[in-house]
């Protein structure tokens, strides 16, 4: 089982869109996938038409009063399950802090799912906190969406440095440009140059397109309702790179 986290300290950069689409593509490739919507806003849960509610809230999960297994919901797509968001996740930091070894808690919660899933996607809230550290310790790959600006790249460098200082397990990092506005020269220039200069950047870039925003209307991944659109193709390319970087072995071949 590989754990892939979509993470950025900033909000509105395309973390949820990436998690939802890559999770769907992984399932379509034959992998058994769980997506954990860790963001109390519950956008990923909404996109899969699943109520952002966990019985007993985040505390029940973190303290082990309720098994993760019992909280999982099946999506409308084969092999793709979701662990819904809950508004109490806004306090996950406090809940983690109240227990032992908080930084390792997420990894230990996911461990029993090892035989059931090939890939777990963690859709993280925008923050840098105890939860973020727990995510970093659990993840095999950090997928970092960035808007192509100089400041964003600086944020990535800070994150890379932070990960480098972790004792023991360190996740691989794959950054990708997201929400690229092709009318902005700076966007297109940075998006064209950096992936060639830095190995931690994916070559696939996700443009800012209305079809991605339409996910909220269709309540489905763009890769499901418009797989041949530019966005669909770019997410497919991003998944190919992420999968390779995560070292996810071939699941059964696609059946559709």
């Amino acid at each position, binding site marked *: 089982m590989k754990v892939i986290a979509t993470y950025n300290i900033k909000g509105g950069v395309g973390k949820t869109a990436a998690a939802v689409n890559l999770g769907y593509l992984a399932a379509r490739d*034959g992998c058994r996938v769980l997506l954990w919507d860790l963001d109390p806003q519950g956008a990923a849960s909404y996109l899969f*038409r*699943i109520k952002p509610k966990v019985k007993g809230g985040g505390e029940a999960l973190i303290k082990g009063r309720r098994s993760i297994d019992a909280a999982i919901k*099946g999506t409308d797509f084969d*092999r793709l399950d979701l662990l819904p968001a809950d508004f109490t996740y806004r306090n996950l930091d406090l809940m983690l802090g109240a227990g032992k070894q908080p930084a390792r808690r997420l990894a230990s919660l996911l461990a029993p799912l090892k035989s059931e899933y090939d890939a777990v996607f963690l859709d993280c809230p925008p923050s840098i906190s105890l939860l973020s550290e727990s995510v970093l310790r659990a993840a095999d790959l950090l997928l970092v969406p960035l808007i192509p600006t100089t400041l964003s790249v600086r944020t990535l460098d800070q994150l890379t440095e932070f990960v480098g200082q972790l004792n023991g397990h360190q996740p691989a990092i794959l950054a990708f440009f997201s929400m690229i506005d092709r009318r902005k020269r700076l966007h297109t220039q940075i998006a064209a140059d950096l992936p060639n200069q830095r190995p931690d950047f994916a070559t696939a870039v996700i443009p800012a397109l209305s079809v991605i925003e339409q996910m909220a209307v269709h*309540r489905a991944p763009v890769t499901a309702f418009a797989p041949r659109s530019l966005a669909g193709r770019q997410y497919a390319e991003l998944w190919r790179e992420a999968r390779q970087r995560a070292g996810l072995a071939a699941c*059964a*071949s696609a*059946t559709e």
Partner: protein
Amino acid sequence: MSVYETPPPSSALVMTIPAREFVLDRTGSAVPQLLLSASGTVNGSSPAAWSGGNHARSIRRIWLDTFDWRLYRAGLTLEQVSRGGDVSLLLTGRDGAVLADERLTGPVRSAWPALVAALPAGPLRERVEPVAGVRALCPVARAVSKVTELGALNGDQKTIARLAVDQMSVTFPGRGTVPPRLTLTPVRGYQAQADRVCRALGDLPGISTGQDSALEAALAAAGHRAGNRPGKAGGAPLRPSEPAATAVAAILTSLLDALEANLRGTIRDIDTEFLHDLRIAVRWTRSALKLCGRALPDGLVGQYRPEFRWLGELTTPTRDLDVYLLRFPAMSAGLVGAAASDLAPFADYLAVARASAHRRLVRGLRSARFSRLVTGWRADLADVRAPRRKPAVAELAAGTIAAADRRALRAGQLITASSPAESLHDLRKRCKELRYLVEMFGSLHDRAQHWQAIRELRALQDCLGDFQDASLQQAEIRAFAGQMLADRRVPAETLLAMGEIAAGLARRQRKARGEFDARFADFAGAASQARLLGLSGSAAA
């Protein structure tokens, strides 16, 4: 997860929520429309709507089981499901929950029957292997389905359960059409909502809860029943007052049925148990002719005893080699001095000898003599009528069982520490005769007493069987070694390894001999004897 859904990755051990089955009492393609029209109107608002149902896809299914239904009797159902180019094996439990799902990615297996070893390694094989044992998996039913899938949606338009409408046509073991079957599979995490859909479906006119599994329904449509064991020798159902002549004829006819049921599998060499069961039917027949033949019309026994003796002898060489080959892995594993690989030339030798013996067996079973035997035997048994002076079968059973018991006791009481092996062999034959009689007339006995008597008899038989098998196999392994030396195709290390096996067999024989006195004392004890004679008494009553 159900048979209708996209299969998971290969070699997956699957945990699923059991699906619920319904049966429609109507046919035709209007089923999905019936459901779609019922959306939101049934049981208040559950489901809010149905999605899909616009097109049907074709699924081909082959249900697999051993000839004697070992999987079915263990509560397992194994089926090969083909959807387009996608083929998988699905193992389900008693409640319909999927236990394992194996996607067949290599060349599609269509050459059933096959031994379990032909299944891809993985959780499915691990579940099936201990149940099927040495028996091959054979197709027990085939069907083609048109499946229409619908999603039950809740108020958020989220799928909470999947419904498959299966219109199945059976093509084997006979032709038939199964009433449309509905399978409702809850989506994970939506069990409670799916339960409401389930209740709503149950309330629809013309729908009832399915009692039979898909396999049972397919077999019923083809005029068959799961779990029948046509190849097993067993006593025919008898009434105590029935005339002995017709009762013995009924027993012998059922043994002939068992013999013929195993004939095709023996000739095609599907697995070793077909021959084993065929031989059991022959042995019982020979014993019945010898011990109960006096109840049959004059001349019949004299005519057929030599023929069944010929048939028994025809089957012996192949079975003896089968026994060797079946025990080969255990024998190899038991080697201490030699390596298992040292025995490879011996295994090759046995395999060649077995193939040759099987060819001779097949020639015999396809011969005019065999054909005359079974045809004539069936016709003659059908002609058996009760004579004017007609002893009842209960009387015959009581007399023959008591006499066989006396012979076994006498043979056993003569055995001392210095008796030759032949004395134990002779006792074994007497015990077999007694056991066959007890089983043949089993329908006349009190069930609990019957099984207790069988258990006690079997304990002695196992000891005697161990003794004789080890004795015979030592003689055989010496003969094999001599033959292999004469053929100049045996390395020294193989002979040494065979010597080690022979030494192991000698130890086994000594152990069995050491246990004999206690086992015989149990059998000859007052309690066991009272039970056996009680059987005879209950048969006579």
